[in-house]
């Protein structure tokens, strides 16, 4: 037994120059260990891209077959919030990259600071995402078969962007009164009916008269007064498969959100280890790998943002 162990020890120590506590027993050198980790991470990122790839394909197919649902649906996404979120994520990617650099240089304080900043960015992103989601959900914009939007939600989205709170409230009243009718199957037919009904019933109070119906209106007066009509926004009619857009929207951003959460856990773990001063010029693999992962999460969002928010 003793002879045997000796043989192994010799074999093992031949290559081990570093004797680093971070060197796992089955690697010969820290370099080899680092390269293995890095290759593994890149492969993992490839699988992540392919995982999202399925969703991107679904997006492409439906965008191709039913462009109208994207044309319609994107009105409900707020490019401002989306844009802020994009900026937040890019910034957090920057702080993450800086963290890797500081880890390599062994600057413990800056490393910790940058990790915390990255975490703040991630929290900010999810916070804004929460606002976006809840804003949709209070109006019944749920994915798939639960999609049951308030009748006036579209007007509100369009006009709300111009800052007309009064109209928004007006819309919501009607939605709650007509909400019951739109439940259940065949929601599409009923909803167009009720849209017309509510449009008729609605007295023209406030600055705007809002029409959802596609029926061309009779001119309201002499030629000279038609100018007012121009101020009515052109409201697109809700296409039959509108809910598919929101299904895709929630799935894509939801899966991305889950990745943000996972990324936060990973960053938190690296932060914890950094508080114990584990990283330095010899050993910074975990910071590097988590950084790679975080950049991928960022990158995916950079594709999601224009695909979903910036449709024209």
């Amino acid at each position, binding site marked *: 037994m003793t002879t045997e162990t000796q043989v*192994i020890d010799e074999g093992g120590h031949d290559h081990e120059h570093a004797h680093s506590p971070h060197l796992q027993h089955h690697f010969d050198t820290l370099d080899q260990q680092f390269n293995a980790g890095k290759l593994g991470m890149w492969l993992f990122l490839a699988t992540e891209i392919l995982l999202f790839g399925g969703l991107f394909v679904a997006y492409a197919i439906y965008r191709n077959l039913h462009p109208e649902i994207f044309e319609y649906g994107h009105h409900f996404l707020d490019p401002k919030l989306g844009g802020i979120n994009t900026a937040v994520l890019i910034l957090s990617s920057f702080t993450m990259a800086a963290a890797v650099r500081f880890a390599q240089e062994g600057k413990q304080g800056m490393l910790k600071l940058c990790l915390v900043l990255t975490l703040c960015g991630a929290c900010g992103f999810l916070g804004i995402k929460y606002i976006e989601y809840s804003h949709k959900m209070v109006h019944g914009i749920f994915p798939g078969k639960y999609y049951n939007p308030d009748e006036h939600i579209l007007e509100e989205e369009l006009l709300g962007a111009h800052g007309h709170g009064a109209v928004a409230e007006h819309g919501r009243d009607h939605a709650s009164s007509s909400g019951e009718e739109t439940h259940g199957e065949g929601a599409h037919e009923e909803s167009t009916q009720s849209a017309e009904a509510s449009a008729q019933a609605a007295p023209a109070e406030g600055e705007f008269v809002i029409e959802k119906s596609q029926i061309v209106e009779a001119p309201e007066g002499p030629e000279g007064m038609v100018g007012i009509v121009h101020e009515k926004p052109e409201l697109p009619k809700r296409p039959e498969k509108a809910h598919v857009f929101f299904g895709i929207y929630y799935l894509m951003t939801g899966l991305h959100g889950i990745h943000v959460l996972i990324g936060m856990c990973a960053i938190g773990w690296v932060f914890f280890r950094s508080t114990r001063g584990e990283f330095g010029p010899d050993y910074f693999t975990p910071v590097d790998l988590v950084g790679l992962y975080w950049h991928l999460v960022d990158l995916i969002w950079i594709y999601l943002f224009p695909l979903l928010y910036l449709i024209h």
Partner: protein
Amino acid sequence: MATTTDTLPGRPYGEVEGNYLTHERGLLSWLTTVDHKRIGVMYLACISGAFLLGGIFAMVIRWELFSPGPTVPGLNADRYNQIFTLHGAIMTFLVIIPGIPAALGNFVLPMMLGAKDVAFPRLNLASWYLWVTGAIFAVTSLVMSAADTGWTFYTPYSTTTQTAVIPMTIGAFILGFSSIFTGLNFIVTIHKMRPDGLTWFKLPLFLWGIYATAIIQIIATPVLGITLLLLIAERVLGVGIFDPTYGGDPVLFQHFFWFYSHPAVYIMILPAMGIISEMIPVFSRKHIFGYTAIAYSSIAIAMFSFIVWGHHMFAAMSPLANMVFSAVTFSVSIPSAVKVFNWTATMYKGSIRLATPMLYALSFLFLFTIGGLTGLYLATLGTDIHLHDTYFVVAHFHYVMVGSTMIAFIGGLHYWWPKIFGKMYSEKWGNVGCIVTFLGFNITFLPQFVLGMRGMPRRYYDYIPEFEALHRLSSIGAFIMGIGLFVTLFCLVYSLFKGKPAPDNPWGSASMEWQATSPPHYHNFTKPPKVGDPYDYTDLVWDPKSEGYYRKAEGQGAA
């Protein structure tokens, strides 16, 4: 005592001290191990259990089909649907896909490289736990109200049936990640853990097979993951991607599914081909013929496998797409045939020894040829319209999945058994098990080709009386095969307790894992292994006393 002198002319070790099986004891030491050898053994045990479960379901299916009308007491048509779904899902996701890479690959791969472990041992253990979790979900579905969609989960049925589809799909999703992490681990290990001098073209062909498999695992499996997530979302939320009720396209699901599952059939077969490439030269005592051709054909198969998925949907695509997919499917058979010809050429003029592993290798050649060639009938547009969704397809894929992959798996298990457990099994009973299984298999599935040609649809509970004779024959074959597998099981398990201690190199193989003791030390090698041509048997000498081989040069040097 395993001193240098002890490793001389392969003396049986009895108990090798410090071997991986005994250096730590207790259940916990297994459940927390990061040793690739132990993880391989744990996979082996669990996969065998799943194989048994799936096999029981198979027997119920064949019993039901023994005669037309209701046959098994208490089994109605709906139950029958659940039974064949469970059979298919368990066998595919729990047994055949992980089988060879996770059980045998885990054990052998680092040793073939002369490495101490895979690149990420903890990830390796995590993969095993993912496998177990996935299995638990699959069994949950069984207990709740087993899914009855078939293993392919086709929409819209899978989005509307009342059975527990979701646990089954979650299970398959988790198993997918287990498979991804195994593949990732293997790719990194092969890239980064090779010792100096072990170039790509000195790798044993089993590693080329595993490598090609790992590429598919990494590229295809995430797509299965997202497909199953979308299926779950469709069931729960009705997002309208696959389900026509909500405006979705059911054929899109089939495209997504087969984009994974066609490559997945090569996840099953490539490692099997790798095992055959190891066993045939060893038992022919001849260098492998066409090493580079076999190596490259593994990669070629992996690449081709991604562009042929459409052949599962000839009924649902445009004529142009059909023609393209048909043509590409034909091209896949070229690299497969390259391998078969090379194996045959390896045996030519070799001195063939019909040991149990070699019997399995020969069975493989025979069965894979039938399975592969019948694939061409299915790849032909005209014939596939007739044969699609009949027993012909069932027979085809059983010839390749069971007749080839499972046979190679069991053959490989016999081949590496002495290394893994340090015990020799009984040659006689090994042979008997192999021959009975082989006969039973053919009696089961040859009649199914005929049934399919005559129009017997797959997945039916009942059939017209004209089909009775062939169905009966098939069922009898299945029971014979079951007996053969049990003989094999007993032969192997018996050897654990009563088998003779194995020498280090019982077959005279030249690849590196045989330079370790049997069973290996927990660090794999007691002295740095020598890199050489893995198929050069010239200086391996038989030592009748130890009933094993040793290297001439080495013996002299050390003596």
